[in-house]
Each structure stands twice: as C-alpha cells, then as structure tokens.
C-alpha cells in the first residue's frame, strides 16, 4: 500500500512538472494566424496558410487535456511505420543468422575443451558479488530478450503456428514481463559496470587477440589477462553502450505518463529495436561461449571457480599473475571449492 502511494506520488509529481510545458505548447503562435488573416483579406476563402499549419503539426486549442491533443496531423508516424519494416526485417535476419551460425558451429566444432583436462588446483575466478551482479543481469537480460523477440517477431513467426488466442495470452505476458523486468536494469547495469570495469581496460594486446580470432576458435588462444578481448567487447559494446541505450529508450517507452511526445517515443522505439537486435545477436555468442561453447566456463560463473588448466589455457597472462600472487584472484583454499572442485574437474573430463 505504501509502495503504491509512493508510486502514485512520483507519477503525479512528474505529470505536474511536465504538464505545465504541454499546456504552454498548445498556444498557437501569432505569426501563423497573421498570415491566415492577410490571406483571407486578399483571397477570401483561401485557407492555405491554415492548412500548412495543420500539416506542420502546429498545435491548436482543444478542451481535451493531454500531450499533443491539439495536434491534428502527426506526419512523422508514417516515417516511423516505414522505418519499422526494414529495421525489423534485417534485425530478424541478424538474430536468426547469429543463432543458426552458433548451432552450425556447435555441430561442426563442438564444445571447445581443454586438451589436458583434469586439472590441478582450483582458482577463485569470480567473487560472490561478481556472480550475483552477473546473474541479476543475465536473468533479467534473457527475460527481456525473449519477451522482446516474442513481441517483435511473434506476429510473423508464432501467430501463424499457435493461433490468435494463445499468442495474445503469450504477448500480454511478454509485455508485462518486459515492462517490469526492464527497470531492474537501472540497478543491474551500474552494478555490473562497477564490478567488472577493473579488468576490462583496453590495450594493444586486445587487438592482437582479435587478429588471432580464428586461432581462438581452433584452440590456439592468444594469451589474455583475466578477460580476453572478446569478453571486453561484450563489456563495452553490449553492457556499456547497447544496454545503456536500451535502458534509456526503454524507460521513455515504459512511462508514457511523463509527457513525452509521440516523436520522442517513435525515435525511442526505433533505436530500442536496432540496439536490441545487435545486442541479442552479440549476446547469443557470449551466452554460447559461456555455457555449451567452452567447457568449464559455465562452472566459473556458477560456483566462481575454474581449474588451473582451464585458466592456463584460456587466460594465460591472468593465470601467471595468479601464480605469482599479483592478481586479485587467488587459488582456492583447500576445501573451499570442495563442493564444486571435484565435480567441476569431473565435468571438465566428461563433457
């Protein structure tokens, strides 16, 4: 009850602050009226200046309260509609190609395994805070991506298969999940940033890592620190750039009571679509490599530990620092990873 009251109070305050601006915008400027008066005297019955104002979206007076209620024609809606079609088409192609490419890669290459499996000692790769931040982000992000894709392409992909009734139920569930999961990112994005920024600095080594990208997929990795250049790309591009864009545009769309105009929401929606398709395609690669693509990677995020062999193979520079005691991450104490260590090692061997 208290939360509801607070929510109403916040919404009301925002509406008050922005409502003043909207009311002011509804006063027609005098100059256009003057043009119409002059034209009426020169050519009675010629309303051309008036209709030009209408076409330009010039607001008039109306008794109906609300944002842009005085606007007769909002022509930018047509641009929005025209832009949506190619954006959704190519975005869909991008996501489909990414998923199909990963499936094909898995079939051809299989999981990237460490040759000399078995292990040695365990290293604590991620702290609890690291993992909680990442899981909050991961779960929220996947929910948003899946519900977003349902709303984006469900009409073309799911609707013909499952029918109107079931799809409408799924779509309304998706919309509500999307709307309520989205604001969680206001917390998750800064938390992820603070937790992971320290080891995500970009250097010349990262470009060499990318130059050796084909070697990476063949199992000959360019030595990297705690995060390789691919992970840094995920950090900077998906988290810092794309997800931040998605949060900002998403909030504009999520709270239509803040007095934003239709043009703002049209642009926000288009940017939201473009950023999400690119982010989903990239995140698909990240999720693939973090789960079935690289043996032992999922364990690192689940328990926080990796084997010594895994660290040496995938992050050699970091492993050397850990051994030399220069890294913040340490070898696990005996018994610390007891639950995870044995099974993690076993998993590395079997899968």
């Amino acid at each position: 009850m208290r939360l509801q009251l607070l929510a109403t109070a916040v919404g009301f305050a925002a509406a008050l602050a922005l409502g003043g601006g909207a009311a002011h915008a509804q006063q027609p400027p005098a100059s256009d009226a003057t043009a119409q008066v002059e034209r009426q005297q020169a050519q009675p019955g010629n309303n051309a200046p008036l209709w030009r104002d209408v076409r330009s979206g010039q607001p008039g007076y109306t008794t109906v309260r609300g944002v842009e209620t005085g606007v007769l024609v909002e022509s930018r809606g047509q641009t929005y509609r025209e832009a949506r079609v190619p954006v959704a088409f190519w975005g869909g192609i991008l996501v489909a190609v990414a998923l199909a490419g990963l499936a094909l890669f898995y079939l051809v290459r299989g999981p990237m395994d460490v040759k000399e499996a078995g292990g040695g000692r365990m290293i604590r790769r991620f702290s609890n805070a690291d993992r909680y931040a990442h899981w909050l982000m991961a779960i929220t992000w996947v929910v948003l991506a899946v519900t977003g894709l349902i709303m984006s392409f469900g009409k073309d992909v799911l609707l013909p298969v499952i029918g109107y009734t079931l799809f409408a139920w799924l779509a309304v569930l998706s919309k509500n999940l999307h709307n309520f999961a989205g604001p969680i990112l206001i917390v998750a994005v800064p938390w992820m940033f603070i937790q992971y920024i320290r080891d995500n600095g970009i250097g010349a080594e990262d470009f060499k890592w990318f130059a050796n990208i084909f070697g990476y997929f063949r199992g000959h990795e360019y030595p990297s620190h705690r995060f390789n250049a691919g992970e840094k790309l995920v950090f900077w591009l998906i988290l810092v750039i794309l997800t931040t864009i998605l949060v900002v545009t998403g909030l504009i769309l999520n709270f239509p009571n803040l007095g934003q105009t239709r043009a703002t929401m049209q642009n926000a929606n288009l940017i939201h679509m473009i950023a999400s398709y690119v982010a989903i395609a990239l995140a698909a690669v990240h999720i693939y490599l973090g789960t079935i693509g690289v043996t032992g990677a999922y364990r690192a995020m689940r328990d926080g530990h990796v084997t010594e062999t895994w660290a040496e193979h995938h992050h050699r520079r970091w492993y050397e620092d850990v051994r030399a005691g220069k890294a913040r991450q340490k070898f696990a104490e005996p018994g610390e990873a007891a639950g995870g260590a044995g099974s993690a090692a076993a998993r590395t061997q079997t899968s």
Partner: protein
Amino acid sequence: MARMKFLCDAERCIECNGCVTACKNENEVPWGVNRRRVVTLNDGVPGERSISVACMHCSDAPCMAVCPVDCFYKTEDGVVLHDKDLCIGCGYCFYACPFGAPQFPQAGAFGLRGKMDKCTFCAGGPEKDSTAEEFKKYGSNRLAMGKLPACAEMCSTKALLGGDGDVIADIYRARVFKRGKGSEVWGWGTAYGKPPQGQPAQGGKT
C-alpha cells in the same frame, strides 16, 4: 458495399463539442479516453477554424501495420476495428497514427497502458452485434442498427459528416459549389490516399 468515411467541414464547425459529448454518451467510454476531439486553430483571431477529429478509418491503416499482435481488422464497410481480447496495450498504434486516435485507459501506476480504445465508427467490435459484451468493450453498434455514427448525427451545423464516402463527398461538393470557398476535405489525403492521376480532384486535400 459502402466505404465509410468521416468528413469535417471546417467552414461549418463551430467548436460546440457536441460530437465529443455525443460520442462519450453513446459509447460510455472509460474516464480519460477521448475517442473524438475538436481542435481549433488560430483560436480567437480572424481566420479561426475548428475541426473535429477521431479515427479516420484509413484505407492503409498505420495502426494495423505496426500492431505486434495483429488485433486490427477492417469490416466490409471499410471501418477499422480492433479486438480488445488480443490487444496488449503496447502503444505502437498510438505512435504510428497520424490523427492521435488510439487512446489508452491507465491500467496501473506509472502510466501503464490498458487495452487500446478508439473510435469504432459506432460499429462495435468482433463480438456478436449489439450484445452486452460488445457494448462493454467497444460501445454502441449503431451501424448494426442501420444508423450512422452518433457524433455526425448529433452535429448541430452538419459540419461533421459520417457515412458512405461517395455520398458525403457529394454533399460536401454541393456545399463548396454553393458557397464558392472552403474546398479542403480535411484529412482525406492522409487517411484515404491521393486520388488517382487524371481524375478530377474533389477539392484540395490536406
């Protein structure tokens, strides 16, 4: 079959808001929803013109094109209707509509959108004609009763015409010939497209 259209004569509209009131009364629309509104340009100065605007039931409706759940449909009279059982309240139709027709009753805090509501040309919805369920969701179904939209029927100066596009265009053309001015068929170019090349234009279209 008739092709239903709205036409607002800017030379006649006196901004009485009778159409707005008629609509609200006829359809018992939820609080905060305005299916029709009257906009006055150059308010209070010479050359002032008023126009009543609602859903124009476009030929190539943008709302229909952008809807992610495909809840819109067109009746054989050319009326654009939607199914509230399918609508998820995403607001895309509102972004795309040039006339600001789609309305959203607030369904919760923070402006959470409920199911979209808009002018139905007094033609109800997908439910069985003139049933209580249809009235509750979409309002009156006057077309099923053989009547025209309440707003146009109520208009005191007959500025707002609603009905078969050919019939109301003829009425309007006769008016323009008689008074010799004010030939703009407001919103028709946007809603129904430009007339094919080589045909006589029915006045300037804005």
